[in-house]
């Protein structure tokens, strides 16, 4: 039995996620879409906190909600035109989108409900058996090269980021 606080928090995040992601893809105004996305990202971040991954939640909020959103907003402002019609969606596209998204949702949700594995333990029990992950653990895991340690991907990501920086600069510089 989970605590009532947890359940309330859960419902808030769940509703926020569902509602704002729905709004993000249906609104015509692109800047609003970005704002709704921000809310979704924040909700997800909260969910991470709730699940006991504080570091991840922090990263989610810092990188996504902080960094990426800024990029989005800048991009939107840079490419925005006053009477932009691209928000309008014709019915053909909408039908396609609804069909695809609907069928994906239906298949996945049915699958979820038919998986007995997914109906077990409560969050409380899991938190007790796993507990929180400390920064120290994360640090060790990311800088070690043993089993369950991630030095190589970590370095790869670094190089990737570097490549992105250079790539981004190169692409954006040329007119």
């Amino acid at each position, binding site marked *: 039995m989970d605590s009532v606080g947890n359940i309330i928090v859960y419902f808030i995040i769940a509703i926020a996620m569902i509602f704002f992601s729905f709004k993000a893809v249906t609104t015509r105004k692109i800047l609003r879409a970005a704002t709704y996305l921000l809310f979704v990202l924040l909700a997800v971040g909260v969910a991470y906190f709730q699940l006991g991954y504080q570091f991840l939640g922090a990263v989610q909020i810092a990188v996504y909600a902080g960094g990426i959103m800024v990029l989005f907003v800048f991009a939107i402002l840079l490419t925005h035109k006053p009477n932009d019609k691209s928000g309008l969606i014709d019915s053909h*596209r909408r039908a*396609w989108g609804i069909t*695809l998204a609907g*069928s*994906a949702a239906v*298949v*996945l949700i*049915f*699958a979820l409900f*038919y998986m007995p594995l997914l109906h077990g333990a409560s969050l409380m029990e899991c938190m007790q058996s796993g507990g929180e992950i400390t920064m120290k653990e994360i640090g060790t895991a990311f800088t070690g090269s043993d089993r369950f340690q991630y030095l190589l991907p970590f370095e790869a990501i670094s190089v990737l980021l570097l490549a992105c920086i250079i790539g981004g600069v190169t692409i954006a510089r040329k007119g």
Partner: protein
Amino acid sequence: MDITLPILILAIPITMFLILGIGGVKMSKKMAGVLGILGLGTTAVLAYIVALTYYFSGDPLFIVDGVRQQYQVFDVTWLAFTQSLVVNIGFLLDPISALMLIVITTISFMVHLYSWGYMEGEQGFQRYYAFLSLFTFSMLGLVVATNIFQMYIFWELVGVSSYLLIGFYYKLPSAVSASKKAFIVTRFADLGFLIGILILSYYTDTFNFVDMTSNPDGVLLSTGGATFMGASVLTWAMVLIFTGGMGKSAMMPLHIWLPDAMEGPTPVSALIHAATMVVAGVYLVARMFPVYCTVDAAMTFICVVGAITAFYAAVVACAQIDIKRILAFSTISQIAFMMVSLGVAYDKPIEGVHYSGLGYMAGMFHLFTHAMFKALLFLGAGALIHAVHSNNYTAMGGLRKYMPITHITFLFGCLAIAGIWPFSGFFSKDEMLAAMFARHWFWGAWMTMVAGLTAFYMFRMYFLVFWWKENPHYKEHKPHDAPWQMSLPLIILAIVSLCAGWIPFGEFVTWNGEPYHIHIELSVAVTSICIAVCAIALAGVMYAKENPLPAKVKSFWPTLWEAAHRRFYWDEIYMFITHKIIFGIICKSIAWFDRHVIDATMDGFAKITQKTSYAIRGMQSGEIQAYVAWYIAGAVVLAAITWLCLI
């Protein structure tokens, strides 16, 4: 026996062919002619030496207790198909090959000499002599073959020489098509020959003539009674081999090439298409005679084909205008005579007949005499054509005053072929008819009738050419006798035609080598002479002076005349089969099938691939959303499938 002479006999002509063929362009005509004549003269002398040695030396190699032997002078391996089935090239001496050596070299030498005059001024004189040498080589190789495969090899070579010589005037379309026809028809016949050899050699496991003919029962036994479609395998083999002979010897229905072959130069017709190559079929049957005797069906087949051909050709010859064609049909008819004669012969004594192998001896005898007088007639016709520049008797008439030598020699030839005593044709024809009567009266009567027809058409031609009425063109262009190179062979051959009958032929050539003393069958001889004289008289009445009788006879049976003149439409039938059916239907449809079905299928694969590519190219639309949509759709479907499988 020393092998030098036999080798030289074959080597000189082929060397001469290579010299004249390769170096001919650089030579003068005279040089080429002299070389050719000298080469052939030498060959002829050598051949005479060899043949006469064979007949008269009494060497135990050649004759044992009065029986002439078959002797292989040399026999070297040329190609080994299997351990036992080996093709040799060799030199077989026996009565008939020695006879043929004489015939071929004599006629060939005469023709070489004659051509020097006849072909003078022709372009390609050197080429002509080269081809003549090639032909002589091939023909000699054919007659001295020790085995059936060697015979086949040279058989093909004579075919090609004949092709080359018929097509000598290669700028004339008619000569080209005649040569083509000759080659293809004989090739078709050779196919039968080849299949026959295939069958025969499979069972006997040998190609060698001596092995086969010395033990014909062994040949029969080796087939083990195998049959195919009701007839024994050996019958098939022998009939098919005879088909080869039918092609070369222009038997019905494969005779159509021979009249057209007259497009070649006349001396060539004399050599190849009268005296030597066309009797190869007869020679083949004679060569395989003991084996043929074991197969009654094949012998009957030979008789029937020969009898029909003889009559057919004789009838057609009565209605021809071109003198060379008359001679050609006469050749067909006479060769058919020999065929029947061989067909009625028998290798074992039959009751009531004093000598069962008579037909064989008579056939070979006639081959010999016919070669001489037919060559004479052709060379004579050549002299006529040389004089009036036309092949048709309508351009001639009354020539006896202008060309006395030609006239007399031609008359000798006609008398010989008509079978008038004492010309050579009489003796050989008499023996043949006697042999036919001995077998069955029908063959004798039938062939006697053909002999009468022969006398009639030959004298029809003789009178039309030398008597009838003088052609008005002579005033502008006076015909005259040919130069000595041409007249000399005529005279020699005329003398031979006159005398050859007195040769005691049975002493030399019989099927088993035992000598036989020829004696005239009086009843047969008298009958045939009477018929011949009547026929000549009839021809004289109709054609000696200009009169309306021939025209009346012609208008009495216009269809028959027309049909005979058009050779009973055999050419048209062949044309229809080859052009319309084989070319027009089979070949065209196969070619069409190839292009429009097989090739189209292959192209179709390419087209399908291409079409499919174009069709699915639209999916590469450049719209990222479409890609994503497809991707997600796929993923969803996969997920659904996985899920359905899991539960």
